[in-house]
C-alpha cells in the first residue's frame, strides 16, 4: 500500500505562486548499513521525484542515499490553468508510486 501525502491548494488565481508539498513513506535504505550478523542491508532508495502540471513536467529532483527516510519535498508553482498536479516517485528497483491533486484556477 502506498503511503503518500500531497498538498496543493484546491483553488488559486491565475498567476498566483502556490506552495506544493509531497511526502512519501519510504525507508531510503542507504546500502551502507549492516543488519544482524554483519549482513549488509541492500540499498533501496527513491532516485527520482517528478511533479507534472497539466501533463507537463514542472519540477524534478534526484534523491541520493543521504536523503532521510520518508522524504519530504516542498516547492512552488505558478498557477496557470485548472488541472491535475501529478507526483511520481521512482526507486532504484524501477518501481513508481504516484499521487495527484486537482487545482482550480480562476
Amino acid at each position, binding site marked *: 500500500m502506498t*503511503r*503518500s*501525502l500531497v498538498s496543493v491548494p484546491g483553488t488559486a488565481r491565475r498567476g498566483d505562486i502556490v506552495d506544493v*508539498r509531497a*511526502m*512519501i*513513506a519510504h525507508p531510503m535504505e542507504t546500502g551502507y548499513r549492516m543488519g544482524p550478523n554483519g549482513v549488509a542491508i541492500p540499498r533501496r532508495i527513491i532516485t527520482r521525484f517528478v511533479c507534472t502540471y497539466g501533463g507537463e513536467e514542472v519540477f524534478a529532483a534526484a534523491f541520493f542515499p543521504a536523503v532521510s*527516510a*520518508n522524504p*519530504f519535498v516542498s516547492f512552488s508553482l505558478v498557477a496557470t490553468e485548472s488541472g491535475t498536479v501529478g507526483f511520481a516517485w521512482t526507486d532504484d528497483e524501477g518501481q513508481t508510486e504516484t499521487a495527484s491533486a486537482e487545482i482550480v484556477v480562476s
Partner: protein
Amino acid sequence: MRRPAHGLIVLALLAGAPAAADGIAAGERRSGSDFMAPETQAMQADDTSNPGMLWVVQGAGLWEQGAGASGLSCAGCHGAAADSMRGVAARYPALDAASGKPVDLTGRINQCRTVRQGASALVRESNELLALTTFVAHQSRGMPISPPSDPGLDAYRAAGRELFTTRMGQLDLSCANCHDDNWRGRLAGSAVTQAHPTGYPLYRLEWQGVGSLQRRMRNCMIGVRAEPFAAGSDAFIALELYLMQRAAGMAIETPGVRP
C-alpha cells in the same frame, strides 16, 4: 539516551540530586513538544509536513479493509472513526472486563483483530499495528487525557508509579530522577522533558519512523542499562497507566513529532 556516554554524564549530574519529588506541580506540566526547536514544532503542527500523518493515512486505509476469517473491517462494525473513536485514546489503558486486567489501546485493537475479525494478532511495533493505533489515537487529537476512574485500575496504576520511582539498571536511576527531578535539564544535546505520553504513537526523527510509547520507554531503560520490559508486558502497561494519570487533562497530540 542512545549513546551510553549520556548516562555517565547524567550520573555525575545526579550524584547530589535530592530524592525523587512526588511528581510535577500541575501548573508546571509541559508537553515534550514544548521543549522542541521551533522548526520541529512547526513540522508537528502542520499535517502536510508532519510525517506521522503517513501512518494516519495508512491506518485510515486499514480501517476500511476486511481482515481475518470474518472478512469484516473495523469500519464494518465501528463506522466512521471520527465519531466512534473520538476520545477513545484519551482514556486508555482501560480495564478489560474479560481478563480483569488493564489493556492499552494497541492491545485493544489487537483484541478486535483476533476475537472479532478472526485474524492473526499484529506484532507490536509493526507498521500495520502502529498505523491502526496512530489512526485511532489521532481521532482524539486536542482532547484532554481522561484516565478512567475504575477502581480495578488503582493497583496497576500504583504499580506503575512504583516502577517510575524505583532506581534501575547499572546507572541506578529511576524514571523520576530524570523526568520529575531534572526535567529542566539537558542530557547532552537532548531536553530531558517531563515524559508525558501526549503524542504517541509519534514520529521520532531519530527513528525515521513512528514508534509507540513502549518503544520510547524501552529506549530510556536501555539508556540506564536496565533490562527493558517486554513489549506489551504488564509492567509497561502499568507505566503507561501511571504516565496517563500523571498527564491527566493535557491534550492528546497524536501524531507528535520528536527529535
